[in-house]
């Protein structure tokens, strides 16, 4: 029973981390119908930046604030100077160019920081552990849990209650109509791209002390992140929530029961969902 609870929390933590990255991806896709594969490089960049930031400043919390903003700025630049120009050429070209960016960014990161694994220590305030049902559980993971829940709530609030959120939702559901009503579409695109990259960078920073920093971390995450966005339905935030929860639990319990085939479960889930409901669990348009 105790192992179940612990594994459940493990899965929850991983799932929420996934959600942070996947939510940005799904938002951007919902708006611009571009699957930005380079998104996971932003996640990776966030982690590496936090390493340097920690070295220079010696403070995790500063890194948590500054690094995602740098990453968001990069995302905005990418939208403004690259994605916007290829838009006319068609979706396939947009898709391929994000691929090129993924390649270039990943390699640039390895070039700058080297290919050996790095680590960021857990901030001292959270380095302790708590007792859950008689088991010792690291406090930092619980921090990830609550922090991600906070971000989720914040995101939901912005999307549902603020004017910006209403604009974004309007553009996701009918872009032409929203533009006709006077929305400044290019500006909203840039903003959403910024928020999406910010989320990815944030996930990178909080994942760094937990999962470690390695040159493969982006691509390791890519597949799970894809599974989440696709299973949940491209462009659907709630779909991303449900799917990241499912994938988190699936990988956590998968490793417990069938360690050799844990890697297959996610793809199996995605394939089954897509075959039954091509638009994903919560997706509207196929």
């Amino acid at each position, binding site marked *: 029973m105790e192992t179940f609870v612990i594994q459940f929390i493990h899965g929850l933590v991983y799932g929420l981390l996934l959600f942070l990255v996947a939510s940005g991806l799904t938002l951007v*896709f919902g708006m611009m*119908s571009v*699957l930005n594969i380079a998104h996971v490089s932003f996640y990776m960049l966030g982690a590496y930046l936090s390493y340097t930031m920690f070295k220079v400043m010696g403070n995790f919390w500063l890194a948590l604030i500054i690094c995602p903003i740098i990453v968001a700025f990069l995302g905005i630049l990418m939208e403004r100077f*690259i994605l916007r*120009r*290829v838009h006319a*050429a*068609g*979706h*396939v*070209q947009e*898709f*391929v*160019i994000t*691929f*090129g*960016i*993924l*390649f*270039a*960014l*990943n*390699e*640039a990161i*390895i*070039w700058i920081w080297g290919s050996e694994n790095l680590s960021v220590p857990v901030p001292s305030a959270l380095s302790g552990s708590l007792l859950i049902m008689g088991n010792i559980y690291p406090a930092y993971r619980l921090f990830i849990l609550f922090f991600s829940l906070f971000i989720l709530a914040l995101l939901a609030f912005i999307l549902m209650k603020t004017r910006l959120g209403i604009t974004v939702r309007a553009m996701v559901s009918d872009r032409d109509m929203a533009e006709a009503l006077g929305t400044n579409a290019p500006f909203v695109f840039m903003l959403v791209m910024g928020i999406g990259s910010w989320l990815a960078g944030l996930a990178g920073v909080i994942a760094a002390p937990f999962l470690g920093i390695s040159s493969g971390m982006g691509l390791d995450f890519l*597949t799970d992140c*894809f*599974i989440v966005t*696709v299973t949940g339905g*491209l462009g659907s935030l709630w779909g991303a929530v449900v799917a990241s929860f499912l994938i988190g639990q699936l990988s956590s319990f998968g490793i417990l029961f069938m360690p*050799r*085939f844990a*890697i*297959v479960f996610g*793809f*199996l889930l*995605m*394939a089954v969902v*897509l*075959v039954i409901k*091509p*638009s994903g669990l919560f997706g509207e348009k*196929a």
Partner: protein
Amino acid sequence: MRNRNLYHWVGIAVGVLAVLFPHILPRFQLRMVTEIVIVALLAMTWKMMLNEAGLFSFGHAVYFGLGAYASVLGWLHVKGLSLMSGILLGGFAAALIGFILSAFLVRMSGTYYALLTLAFNQLIWAIVWKWRAVTGGDDGLGKFPKPDLLGISMRDPANYYYLSLAIVAACMFLCWYFTKTPLGSVVKSIKSNEERAKFIGFNVGVSKVIFLTMLAFFAGVSGALYAQFQEFVGTSSIDLVMSTNVIFMAFIGGVGHFWGPLLGSGTYVYLSEYLSRYTDRWELIFGIVVVILVLFAPQGILGIARKKT
């Protein structure tokens, strides 16, 4: 008219060169040219899928890799399996999996098609990777026989190059011929308007299944040729990197042109070979090249050439 003449002359010149290559190129270069020819067939099948049917395949390595594995397993375990039968076995294995997958894939289009192919790619890659008893897992499979063809030794790189060239040329011709058949036109009509094609009375699903199965067959043949060329098959032939490389090749050359994949695979093979000599981080340069290319020439190298003439 001048344009067309130029096109023919370039075609003839390349054809003559292709036949002469083993005599004028050093051994090392010949290996690269052989690789280009084999991979060009794969890139061609990817381009056909996008160009004729409007389907963006993100898991093309499945057909390539399974073709490679099937043929190698055939050469390893079936005594006296000839070279051609092995290659055909690879093709048919890929076609079979293409047929099975297309049953799921025909309902999809656009991004969802791409992502479902990605899911299948990863699923099959994971199975191949974990099923050590049959596939050798990470170690891959090597040391399989290389049978002679009609008494001609295929160990000679020149002979193997000619064989690949002949097979690839035949497959490419069939690809081209397909676009001229009535079925090819139906597939094209599905791309431009699926609803209307359905309404006119074409069996959209079956046409797509036949088309995808055929392309899977050719991709499998390419995989089998590649395995025999490398004298090795490993998980790298079926993983996501392989799938993305195919996309790059097709794109560099230009997806809208028949010869695009050949030019693209040539550029890709040479670029990766020479860049990796100068720097370990060649993928950085490669990524930038792709970005610049798509940014300024969304139709690939041949797209630029066509605009100029």
